[in-house]
C-alpha cells in the first residue's frame, strides 16, 4: 500500500514539476494576458516571470561608540557567506535606536539621531559573501547607541538577470 501511495505521490509531483501555472489576483475577475493581473504567471507562450526567492534571513544588533575625539565613523560590517558564486539580491532593514524607539528603515539609508548621524548600505565582499555596512558617527561624550538589522538574502542574482 505504501508503495502505491509513493507512486501516486510521485506522479503528482511529476505533474506539479511540469505544469503551467497562472494564479489570478483576488481583485481580478477575468483571465487576461497581463502579468500584472496575476500573483504567479507561468505561460506556455513563453512568458514566465521569476519570483523573488528568499534563501536566508539574518538578524542581529550592533553597538556604536564614540571613536577618537568624536565625529569619527564607527563602522560595523555584517558579512553573510552564501557560497552562491554570484552576487545575489539583498533586501535589508535597520532600526537605529538613536533615531527613534522602534522603527525599521530600508537600507540604504542615512539618518540623523540625537547623538550623531547614521548610515547603512549594502555591498558584496565577493561572489560568495554579501555585506551590510552600518556606520554610526557619534559626537564626543555621547552614550553608546544600538542598531538592529534584518537582512534577507535572495537566491536571485542582482545583475545579468534581465530574463
Amino acid at each position, binding site marked *: 500500500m505504501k508503495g502505491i501511495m509513493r507512486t501516486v505521490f510521485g506522479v503528482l509531483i511529476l505533474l506539479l514539476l511540469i505544469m503551467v501555472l497562472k494564479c489570478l489576483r483576488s481583485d481580478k475577475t477575468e483571465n487576461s494576458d497581463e502579468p500584472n493581473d496575476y500573483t504567479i504567471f507561468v505561460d506556455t507562450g513563453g512568458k*514566465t516571470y521569476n519570483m523573488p526567492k528568499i534563501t536566508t534571513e539574518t538578524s542581529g544588533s550592533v553597538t556604536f561608540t564614540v571613536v577618537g575625539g568624536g565625529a569619527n565613523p564607527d563602522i560595523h560590517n555584517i558579512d553573510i557567506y552564501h557560497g552562491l558564486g554570484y552576487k545575489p539580491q539583498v533586501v535589508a532593514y535597520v532600526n537605529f535606536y538613536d533615531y527613534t524607539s522602534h522603527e525599521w528603515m530600508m537600507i540604504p539609508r542615512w539618518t540623523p539621531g540625537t547623538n550623531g548621524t547614521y548610515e547603512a548600505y549594502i555591498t558584496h565582499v565577493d561572489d560568495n559573501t554579501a555585506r551590510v555596512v552600518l556606520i554610526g558617527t557619534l559626537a564626543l561624550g555621547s552614550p553608546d547607541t544600538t542598531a538592529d538589522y534584518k537582512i534577507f538574502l535572495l537566491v536571485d542574482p542582482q545583475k545579468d538577470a534581465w530574463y
Partner: protein
Amino acid sequence: MLGIKISKNGESVNTSDDNLAFSSDFFTPKIYKIKKYTSNTTEAHGLDYAPMFIALYNNALLAGTDVYTIGASVSVDSANVKVFMPSSATEVWVILFADGIE
C-alpha cells in the same frame, strides 16, 4: 519531502535555483498593499507586526516627476507606516509586504 518547482518555458525544473520562476523551497514575499503618499503621513497599515517594504520616490528637482528612485524617508513599526517626504519629491510610493521584518 513534497514541493513545487516552476521553471521558465522550455527549461527543466532541474535548472539552478536562481533560474526558477518559483520554488517552494524558498520564501516568496507577498505584496500586501501599494500606496502613494504626497505629504508627510503616519498611517496604520493594519498588520500587528512590522512588515517588509520597499519605498520609492520621484525627484522632481533632479530626475523628473516620472523618474523613481529607492530610499525615501519611510519607516515602519508594528502599527504604522511613517512617510517623510524628501524635499524634492512630489510623491512617495510604498510597497508593503504581508511578510514581517521581525
